[in-house]
């Protein structure tokens, strides 16, 4: 082995790669509270963000962290926060607040144990809001999604969420860190910079959007109608998904995040053995790629939903699958003994067995 060839790839832990991607995207504020497996992202940014001219705060709790990020974002800076499980639950109030006062920021949800699909897509905040949520299946895609989310946040003036998990956070792989450009963005003519006092043109960031006495705003009724209409429009244009082998598939397996990586691996193997199986993966958890799923399951007699929870995404699959009676749940709750990661269900041989068990006898004919 001669001197190391110039390595085209850099070995990075998923959480660190996400941190670097956020810096590449221009993130200059991050606040977070330690909670496994999200903690390595906080640790990486605590070191790397100040070096990039930004600020990283190891905050006193998740409620303060998300509100620090909201404050930073209201000045026009690209800001982010993150956590998982209970920590994301504590942040719901502020995520809804940011949706309704139109403050862009990115929330990194590096979930643990169960796949918190409901929490990410239904949220627990208040008012008519949704949260654009991208769920990468591996570290390279997480690097792309992180930068895309900062773009979508600014484009739609709304908080967005990266949905990751313990495998994504803790696995190290060789990656390429490249800055991505997603095109032009509207100017931040709403940002607070403290210079408009006394001019009669002073600004406000406020969910009620009452404006100023001299320049009244739409007020809560009209403003929240506009927000609802905004999310309805986002629902149409920001759907993303991926699928393979579905054209002639009589069985389609639906999964998201790291779980989809395993399903992809197993389906490729079953295809090689002659089974007519395909897979479908929502990349955006919200907006859910309903029409694409309907198309992908057109020829399917069996739609197998594989999730690591008691069955959550299956609710959306039921809304859109071509034939609802074909839907079967093959996932389940499966927790690592430490209570910090996935359990034995996330394993290729187990998934293979569950798919085969759902196929008719003698498949392939």
């Amino acid at each position, binding site marked *: 082995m001669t001197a190391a060839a110039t390595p085209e790839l850099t070995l990075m832990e998923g959480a660190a790669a996400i941190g670097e991607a956020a810096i590449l995207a221009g993130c200059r504020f991050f606040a977070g509270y330690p909670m496994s497996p999200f*903690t390595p992202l906080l*640790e990486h940014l*605590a070191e790397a963000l100040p070096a990039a001219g930004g600020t990283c705060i190891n905050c006193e709790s998740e409620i303060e962290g998300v509100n620090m990020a909201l404050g930073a974002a209201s000045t026009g800076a690209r800001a982010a926060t993150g956590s998982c499980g209970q920590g994301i639950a504590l942040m719901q109030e502020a995520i809804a607040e940011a949706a309704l006062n139109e403050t862009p920021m990115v929330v990194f949800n590096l979930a643990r144990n169960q796949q918190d699909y409901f929490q990410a897509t239904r949220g627990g905040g208040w008012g008519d809001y949704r949260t654009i949520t991208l769920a990468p299946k591996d570290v390279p895609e997480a690097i792309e999604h992180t930068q895309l989310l900062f773009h979508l946040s600014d484009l739609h003036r709304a908080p967005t969420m990266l949905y990751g998990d313990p495998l994504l956070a803790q696995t190290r792989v060789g990656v390429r860190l490249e800055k991505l450009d997603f095109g032009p963005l509207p100017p931040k003519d709403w940002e607070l910079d403290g210079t408009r006092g006394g001019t009669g043109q002073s600004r406000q960031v406020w969910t009620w959007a009452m404006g100023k006495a001299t320049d009244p705003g739409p007020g809560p009724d009209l403003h929240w109608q506009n927000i609802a209409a905004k999310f309805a429009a986002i629902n149409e244009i920001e759907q993303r998904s991926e699928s393979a082998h579905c054209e002639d598939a009589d069985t389609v397996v639906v999964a998201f995040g790291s779980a989809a990586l395993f399903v992809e691996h197993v389906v490729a193997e079953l295809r090689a053995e002659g089974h007519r199986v395909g897979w479908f993966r929502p990349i955006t958890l919200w907006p859910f790629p309903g029409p694409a799923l309907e198309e992908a399951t057109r020829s399917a007699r069996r739609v197998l939903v594989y999730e690591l929870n008691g069955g959550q995404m299956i609710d959306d699959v039921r809304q859109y699958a071509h034939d609802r009676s074909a839907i079967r749940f093959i996932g389940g709750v499966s927790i690592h003994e430490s209570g910090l990661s996935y359990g034995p269900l996330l394993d290729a041989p187990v998934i293979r067995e569950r798919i085969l068990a759902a196929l008719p006898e003698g498949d392939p004919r």
Partner: protein
Amino acid sequence: MTTESTIERGPVVPTGTAPLGLTPVASTSPLLLGEHSLCPGCGEPVALRILLETLQELGIVQRTIGVVGHGCYGSFVRIMDIDVLQCLHGRAPSCATGIKRMRPDVATFTLQGDGDMVNEGLQEVLHTAARGENVTAILLNNGVFGDTGGQQTATTVVGQRTKTSLEGRDAAVHGHPIPVADLVASLDGVGYVGRGTVGTAGGVLRTKKMIRTAFESQLAGEGFSLVEILTMCPTGWFVTAPQGPDYMASSMEEVYPLGDLRPRTKGTT
């Protein structure tokens, strides 16, 4: 690591079986149902043991409810033979308030770390104290989030290295530590506040006495009581287990002096 000491020592004494006819003057608490899984040299199991011994000596084991926060000490919930509510991170004093209001005759205590009490739940402990709730809070202070690998907390002392302050806590960047016991001691509604350490045998004995005083204050209805216990976390401090007590004394005890911060006024300490 120990170097081979040069002191001339007597012969090795067998320690496999107990001497016949003698009862031990010190042994494992019967209220421990199993082993904890914490790091070598951790101070938290020592704090747990003297807490359980105090409940036993006060004869209130069947009249006690514990409320445990989130941290390495979470592994005690499984092994302490006491009625326990495992509550959410930082919320123990609030849950303890609800418990004590419903069962005023039951001794109620919280078991929390510095991350739990001084980061996530600072609001809870200050309001519970100011309300004069008749509960006892036990704070295990090791200056790091041990459970997630050693990040900085609100009680990390200036200059201390952690995973989120790798060059040592810098007040200009990370702010100053919060001496929560002193804050609580300044509030009306408080019956007793003490701060002890488990770094030395003498420290363990004095801390155990503080725990007893706190529970006596609670049982006498004198309001909120708090015992802050400095505990070693060699893993989080980037030191070896034997270095834990000395490191703690030189770093934390300088910022958090030991003793009764708020002696009992009504009863006798």
